[in-house]
């Protein structure tokens, strides 16, 4: 499976490693400031609200809403050619941060700003799992 996966994969470094290790365990984590309670994404080394370096990885509730989205009609990378047209969605998590992702089990025409979504996990290779989102009404 991993030899056949041709899409780009996230580059993992010291700062974001806990996020991707958690994804492999099917958990969505964010860094939370131990001084002021601010949640940050993407991962970093200080809190941009109070400049504390006391950040701790905590589990999120995995829920949020669609903040905005776009639909790709042009091929920017050959591995996505068969997906066109596909949507990239910005999800605003309940904890505050926004992240770019895709919606699974959701037609493009059904996407709406404000729609509630929840995380699901896509094990794309043996080493890598991508957090994705789906409409909350769709229980498997």
């Amino acid at each position, binding site marked *: 499976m991993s030899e056949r996966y041709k899409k780009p994969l996230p580059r993992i470094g010291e700062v974001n490693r806990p996020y991707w290790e958690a994804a492999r365990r099917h958990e969505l984590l964010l860094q939370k400031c131990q001084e002021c309670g601010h949640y940050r994404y993407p991962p970093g080394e200080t809190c941009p609200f109070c400049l504390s370096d006391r950040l701790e990885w905590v589990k999120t509730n995995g829920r949020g809403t669609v903040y*905005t*989205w776009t639909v790709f009609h*042009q091929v920017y*990378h050959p591995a996505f050619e068969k*997906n066109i047209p596909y949507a990239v969605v910005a999800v605003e998590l309940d904890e505050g941060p926004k992240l770019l992702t895709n919606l699974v089990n959701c037609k493009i025409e059904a996407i709406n700003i404000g729609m509630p979504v929840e995380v699901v996990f896509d094990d794309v290779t043996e080493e890598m799992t991508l957090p994705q989102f789906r409409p909350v009404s769709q229980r498997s």
Partner: protein
Amino acid sequence: MNLKDKCAIAGLGYTIQGKIPGRSGMSFYLEATRNAIDDSGLNIRDIDGIIIQPCPTDRSVTAFTLAEELGISLRFGADQQLQGASACAIIQHAVMAVDAGLCNYCLCAFADTSRSAPQDVVYQMAWGTSAAYGMFGVAAHYALIARRYMHEYGITNEQFGKIAVTSRKHASLNPIAQMRNPITIDDYHNSRWIVEPLHLLDCCLVSDGGRALIVTSAERARSLQRPPVYIMGMGQGHPFEDPMRRSKLTVTGAVESGKTAFAMAGIIPKDVDVCAIYDSFTFVVPMQLEDLGFCGRGEGGPFVEEGRIALGNEIPTNTSGGLLSEVYIQGWVGLHEAVRQLRGDCGERQVPGAEISLVTSSGGVLSTHATLILRR
């Protein structure tokens, strides 16, 4: 301390522009510089300061390698990278340097060969984590903002299209514009999606070419051959680099940069005769017009739809055709057009009696922003 009217633009340099294969970035900086010198009536030896915006396709060009090619030594030099906002920001630094006595004649320049350079060096945003989700290119980030703008204020593709049509109409009056064939609103709707909700005709051009201009003191400018264009007001505003980290997507740095520039100039939007608003994509024009106070929050869509930014109407905007239809040499396109309008050099597209012009430039994904207010 106020820098209002202390300095002026005394020379403008253009180059051949559009799709010009086989040229280096440096050759465009040199051509633009020669033309700015000729326009001003100065001698190249008079130039004692240079600030460049780095060439996206030729990293060998710096203020100092350019000075070397020009055969001059400098008293002041800098490379400034605010991406698309560099043009208006560089003029601000030139004004401060001249006013402080660090140099007398500051050359400001930029060149790009992105139209003809290999694709792998052209406006490719570095892949972040989001590439794993199929997120590529600059336009997609703008598309996310455009969608949110539609959602919050009800602006429509029809209104985006009106901007594209207006800009093209202006370009049809500009002999050096890259795209001069008029388009209709149907052409807009029929142009292919790039990243929804952005059509091809929502997106700026990609071009080869260069621009240069010379900033000096108001007093020195008055003794030169071209009418001085005075720098009345200037400001900057820089929201977070990554749009996803901003609390609101539908305001730009123009709020802050405009407020600072208007305060320095001591005028209000009603006093402005002609605008050059950075138009990397159609929809960022009404967004900045709202931010600058030319219309109220959320009124930008109807404002452009009613044609109020067209030549002959309330506030003619992007009279050269802008980045959408004249050429894409980043913020320098609007800046040069503003100076031309105030000199009365715009021919068929001249705004009669134009005395005050407002220019913006914006970089990244509405990440950096600079405003200038100019007068004749």
